[in-house]
């Protein structure tokens, strides 16, 4: 599909020299140099706010730099908008998907084209690209029915269709499972080695950078702090450069995406908060799901005979490849879907999950996977968001006092270290990590029996992840049962007392954290039954 590019020329594909960009008083990029070569994957590592995305937006034409020069293939140029960038063969796969859910894959790929087009040829082309890179995407599938991993592959097809010589991936694995990440890197290697493209891979995960890149540039606070061949780098060195201080890789392993270190240290990490977790205190589970069958809005079975018990003070990790019922499970526990069959019990009392507010009334609080969809109201203030679920707490006979709300909110803001201009700031003005803190603060404020945390650290930076994992442990220590639903295996292994594996809407395996065998777990994630795995 691609004309071979001349390899081995000395002219770099892209050279950014001394790029500076400020937003108001804040410098996002300060004299940053970056050189991308054809045939190499260049990692750009840094925490959230380090300036990585701004730099990439300069390259793709979304942000105009204040100073500095851009050279593409040795030619000095200006990139004013994404069209300029596209004309110069620069394509980007954004972290957040821009797909139209009701449309099919090929329709999404064709979106944005103008003039006449040939539907059959377009479908054909999508199928070709999919096959060439082994993406396994059906051109006729509806995007709304695809998992996050597949959606990202659709985005990749959108990008590759224009055959760009320079590819930018912005945090590509933040929504992917480990297996999907591996596949993504295979695609990247193919695109780079065989077809001689230049790739910039933006990430804050050390593991990813170490595995997938050839060279790495590390940014901190808007400036480049280190640049090196990946072969010469190791995890502690990168972490130090990125964070600017010594990092305990054990405690932050999940943040940095290091499965190996978590497993290697299983003796201590297995039970992070002492021995109290080993024996569930109560015999009646805090949350009990029995033979749950539920259907998604499309009529397909999303949960198929699911059984889970969560006892007081324990963290149960639900591992699984995304798309196997995780979101249905979260929705169920958020009173968003009703069950077709099965029993939901909280503290031994039955709950009708489909009734609005049923689960939260029963004491099940949820930190949802997509907080913008069901965890918050972006247009309301921070204070209001802290009281979405239980405004009754501060109301008498249906009337509440905004001053009391503000005061209570200020207390929670302090307690949960939420960085905000104040209780009246609009929720959308908060950073992702702080939004997540608001959600958690609210969910804990009504003394839940069970806390459901779905992908609680997705998209957060190292500091925020550390904070979140600590909090989850504290919650469990305080006697609340925690159900952790995550596709980040490291996170599950690091936090859980017990791991269950979700596959096609049912639990196909369960093991104590201390007994986790990675190989067996991997097989279970792939759907092999427990016996076959053993």
């Amino acid at each position, binding site marked *: 599909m691609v004309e071979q590019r001349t390899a081995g020329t000395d002219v770099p594909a892209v050279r950014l020299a001394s790029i500076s960009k400020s937003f108001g008083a804040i410098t996002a990029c300060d004299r940053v140099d970056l050189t991308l070569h054809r045939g190499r994957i260049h990692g750009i590592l840094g925490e959230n706010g380090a300036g990585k995305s701004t730099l990439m937006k300069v390259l793709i034409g979304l942000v105009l730099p204040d100073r500095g020069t851009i050279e593409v293939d040795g030619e000095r140029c200006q990139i004013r908008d994404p069209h300029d960038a596209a004309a110069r063969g620069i394509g980007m796969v954004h*972290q957040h998907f821009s797909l139209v859910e009701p449309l099919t894959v090929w329709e999404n790929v064709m979106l944005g084209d103008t003039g006449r087009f040939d539907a059959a040829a377009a479908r054909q082309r999508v199928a070709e690209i999919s096959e060439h890179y082994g993406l396994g995407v059906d051109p006729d599938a509806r995007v709304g029915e695809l998992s996050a991993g597949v959606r990202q592959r659709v985005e990749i097809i959108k990008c590759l269709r224009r055959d760009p010589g320079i590819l930018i991936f912005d945090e590509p694995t933040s929504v992917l499972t480990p297996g999907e990440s591996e596949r993504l890197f295979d695609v990247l290697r193919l695109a780079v080695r065989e077809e001689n493209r230049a790739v910039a891979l933006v990430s804050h995960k050390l593991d990813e950078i170490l595995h997938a890149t050839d060279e790495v540039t590390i940014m901190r606070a808007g400036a480049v702090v280190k640049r090196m061949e990946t072969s010469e780098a190791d995890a502690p060195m990168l972490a130090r450069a990125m964070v600017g201080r010594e990092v305990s890789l054990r405690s932050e392993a999940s943040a940095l995406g290091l499965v190996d270190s978590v497993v290697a240290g299983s003796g201590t990490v297995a039970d992070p908060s002492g021995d109290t977790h080993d024996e569930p205190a109560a015999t009646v589970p805090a949350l009990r799901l029995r033979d749950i069958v539920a259907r998604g809005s499309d009529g397909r079975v999303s949960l198929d005979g699911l059984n889970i018990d969560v006892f007081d003070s324990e963290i149960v990790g639900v591992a699984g490849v995304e798309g196997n019922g995780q979101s249905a499970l979260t929705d169920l526990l958020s*009173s968003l879907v009703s069950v077709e069959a099965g029993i939901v019990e909280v503290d031994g009392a039955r709950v009708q999950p489909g009734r*609005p507010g049923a689960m*939260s009334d029963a004491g099940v609080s949820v930190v949802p996977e997509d907080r913008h969809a069901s965890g918050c*109201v972006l247009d309301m203030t921070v204070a209001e968001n802290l009281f979405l679920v239980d*405004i009754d707490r501060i109301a008498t006979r249906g009337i*509440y006092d905004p001053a009391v709300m503000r005061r209570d909110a200020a207390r929670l803001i302090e307690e949960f270290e939420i960085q905000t201009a104040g209780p009246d*700031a*609009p929720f959308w*003005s908060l950073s992702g990590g702080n939004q997540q803190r608001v959600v958690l603060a609210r969910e804990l404020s009504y003394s839940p029996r069970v806390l459901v945390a779905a992908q609680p650290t997705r998209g957060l930076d190292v500091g925020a992840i550390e904070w979140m994992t600590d909090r989850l442990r504290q919650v469990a220590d305080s006697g609340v049962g925690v159900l952790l639903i995550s596709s980040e295996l490291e996170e599950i292994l690091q936090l859980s007392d017990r791991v269950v594996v979700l596959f096609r809407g049912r639990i196909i395996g369960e093991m104590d954290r201390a007994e986790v065998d990675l190989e067996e777990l991997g097989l279970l994630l792939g759907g092999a039954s427990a016996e076959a795995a053993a």
Partner: protein
Amino acid sequence: MRPANGPKPAPAAAVTAPSRLREAGVAAAMYLGCIAVALLISAIIVWLTGGSWQAVFSALLDGSLRAPGRWGETIGIAIPLVVVALGTAINGRAGVVNIGQEGQLMMGTAFATYVGVNMGGPGPLVVVCLLIVGAAAGAMWAGIASWLLYWRRVPEVLTTLLLITVASQATGYALKVDWLLLAPFREDRSVRNQVSDQLADDTRIPRLDIWGNDFPISAFAVVLMAVIVFLLFKRSVWGFRMRMLGRNARTAQRAGVSTVTYGTTAMLISGACAGLAGAMMLSGGDFGNYRFTPGFANNIGWEGLLVALVARSHPVGIVVVAFSFAGLRAGSGFLAATGVEREISQVVLALLVLALLVPPAILFIRERRRALSATRDRT
């Protein structure tokens, strides 16, 4: 990554909301600017077509405020506008669309007319009953749309709109039939066509006279309604949950706000307000001389919807905007006397309405953009 924020130690600093005072100042400046531009363009158009722009503006001012008795007239027109707009603000808050106020208003008036003419008994009781029945009829009409929405997911934008036509036909028919609304034949009327009997003197809302300006006392009730809605929005759990539903239905459902219950309630209240507005128009005296006729609604339902949009569903804003719109309506009557062509004076009126519509649209888009860009740049 937050490019708008840059390095880590300054989270959310650059995107904190500007102070409310500044926001209000910007909004006020925008309104003044837009009105100034509209007046300028109007003046140019009138001047180009050979009219006197001074006369036009002076006539508008005379007709709405300055001439004797005119601000009473303006208040009389503003009353139903406020009521309709308050209802619209409520359904807008809950995220349900109602654009059928015109039809709900017709139904409300029709039922109120029937009660007012046929009920008998003590006058004040009749007034109260006809207002209640009017509101109930409006609610029923909106309820049809709501029922179709939650039963079969028929978009309420369509149903509310189409039900206007049905209401118009149904009330038109009722006005043709003796046993429904058609006034009994009398010698003093030459044409006996589609007009209801007049409300008896004691079944009318009393009118107040202040320095030659008279208006129905329902004006005070309407201001009270605005205050109540304001408090509901600001302080009630119910208003809070309505807003939650409107802004994020999934979050609301999780937090125990039933889309069906709250959505239906909002729609019924909205319809009730439109129906009540019609009943108030009928028994207030500023429209149709206490009689119901096919053209009775006179776009008040539409204009009330517009008022809510312009006031961005803010109850206090609604009172102010409704008064402005009513002023334009009252003032337009005086334009004919200026010698300016009717078409031109209509353009002038339209420009002024447009001037009031532009700022809220800009404010809305700005807010959206800010929220969008803020969320897009987050990870």
